[in-house]
């Protein structure tokens, strides 16, 4: 493992950059546990202070330190995005691989479900859930709901690859090696669809975090737990952009961009790592 990372870092500029950016993110998340302020406490500090030596990223109009808010918000958002991505990846992998491999009736049933989920308009559904669940609409619930909405397109993508994998003769070879379906799916086909999974993970996180922000901006989430969306929500509620409190908005945006650049660079270089052909391409040059 270590040597792989070392090799990648040595040879792959993208990986190195991604790793560094990711380290920044992880650093911020770790640091969040050492915040001197309660994450939800307001009016502890003088409001609207621009970034300076004391408040590195300034303070909000609610008297919070932007830096420490940001670390906690990043942590919550990241866990949210990872949670949604993780659960929805699992669903889409299971559905996509099984449907593609099993074919026949299993495929048809799974795809009917898949397509129905895919066509349902997500945004009104989320708001409806918000109204229906009210107080039970916790972050965990939101993660689960988002995850169960966010898998279908990717499952279809995975299925289409799985179908072609099924006809490849290495699948026959695996069958005659006595591997079980689970094993074939997990060990033979999974690595083949991993690049898709990586690529879609990032898209999924962009989608879920974007959705979180949209819901937050419209006031459809828990407003106490700091997240990226919540920071923007409060900044917006205080007309931060128009009143020149730009650091309140710029900070979360910058961090989100860093997060996704890191994810993007990592997923890109990992894809290349995953595919031995393109990995070899960059050697010797």
């Amino acid at each position, binding site marked *: 493992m270590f*040597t*792989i990372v070392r*090799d990648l870092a040595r040879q792959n500029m993208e990986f190195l950059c991604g790793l560094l950016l990711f380290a920044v993110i992880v650093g911020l998340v770790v640091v969040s546990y050492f915040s001197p302020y309660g994450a939800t406490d307001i009016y502890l500090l003088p409001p609207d202070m621009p970034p300076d030596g004391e408040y590195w990223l300034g303070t909000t109009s609610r008297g919070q330190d932007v830096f420490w808010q940001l670390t906690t918000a990043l942590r919550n958002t990241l866990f949210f995005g990872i949670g949604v991505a993780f659960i929805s990846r699992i669903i889409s992998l299971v559905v996509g691989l099984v449907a593609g491999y099993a074919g026949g009736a299993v495929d048809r049933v799974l795809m009917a479900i898949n397509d129905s989920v895919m066509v349902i308009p997500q945004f009104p559904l989320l708001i409806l859930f918000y109204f229906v669940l009210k107080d039970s609409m916790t972050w965990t619930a939101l993660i689960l709901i988002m995850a169960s909405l966010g898998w279908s397109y990717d499952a279809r993508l995975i299925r289409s690859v799985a179908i072609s994998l099924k006809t490849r003769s290495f699948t026959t070879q695996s069958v005659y090696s006595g591997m079980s379906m689970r094993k074939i799916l997990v060990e033979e086909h999974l690595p083949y669809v991993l690049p898709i999974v990586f690529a879609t993970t990032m898209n999924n996180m962009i989608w879920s975090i974007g959705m979180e922000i949209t819901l937050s901006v419209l006031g459809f989430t828990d407003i106490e737990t700091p997240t990226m969306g919540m920071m923007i929500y409060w900044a917006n509620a205080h007309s931060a952009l128009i009143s020149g409190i730009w650091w309140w908005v710029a900070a979360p945006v910058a961090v989100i961009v860093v997060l996704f650049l890191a994810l993007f660079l990592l997923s890109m270089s990992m894809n290349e790592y995953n595919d031995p052909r393109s990995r070899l*391409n960059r*050697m*010797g*040059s």
Partner: protein
Amino acid sequence: MDPLVEIENLKAYYRAFLYGVDREVRAVDDISLTIARGEVYGVAGESSSGKTTLIKTIAGAIRPPLRVVSGKVTFHFDGGTQDIYAMKPEDRLALRWKHLSYIMQGSMNVLNPVRRIRHSFTDFAFRHMKVGKSEFLERVATHLQRLKLDPHLLDAYPHELSGGMRQRMTIALATILTPEFIIADEPTTALDVIVQRDVLSMIREIQREMGSSFLFVTHDMGVHATVSDRIGIVYAGRLVEEAPTAKLFNMPLHPYTQHLVGSLPRIGDATARPSLEGRPPNLAMPPEGCRFHPRCPKRMEICSQKVPPLVTVEPQRRVACFAVTGDQV
């Protein structure tokens, strides 16, 4: 002899750096040969002995991890002299297809799957022909007919053709500009024997007509016997023997060639053929000295110590074996 291609001391290695392990595969290791104008030169040898690598290197189709470590490939197209590695990329590009065409291994799968075949001809050849579009298509049609391909097939997609047809299409594509030099890697593999015979005789015909030189690789000795003027035998990245076809089959000199020729089954002859003992050398760690010596029935002391040089034993005939040439050379 009027040389068209001269290859001197060519070394081409694959370098792979994986999981922290550095691996160097010496797929072409110090090969020199010359191909004359109008000659069909066949390369035979074991699987993974470096045949593909050799002709890739000659064709200048080098992509990482393959690297040319040393050596020189010189063409004499249009009476000039072109050093393929010293050339500017755009000049090398200008050679392609006009003077030199290369049919890759797996030639049934090299056509763009989403475009009609006609477009492939336009892409590859139209630029060079300097004729009008309709005349161009006419010429293509005539050319296809020569290969017993229906010109209507130009409007088909590659997947609509059988493997044999696709291979013939590729051959047609490679020969349409009557290049001086055609390189082909296993052009008839996986073809029906009947189809294969047709394809081969056509290649031969076209080559004779155009007077092109033809370098091709196959490990099917029957094909060599049918098509080649001269055969080079590659073993583990080295050229071990080179001879006119008849001489090679009738009187192979190198022990590996002897084995190769001797092991060929023939219908009507059911005598047991020996299989070669041992296993092909690992090109990442080839044996010292003669690379064949661990499997050689005639091996001598010196074979494991010194690399036998390729010695011209008679005109047009070279061999690299101490048992034949003696160790004094």
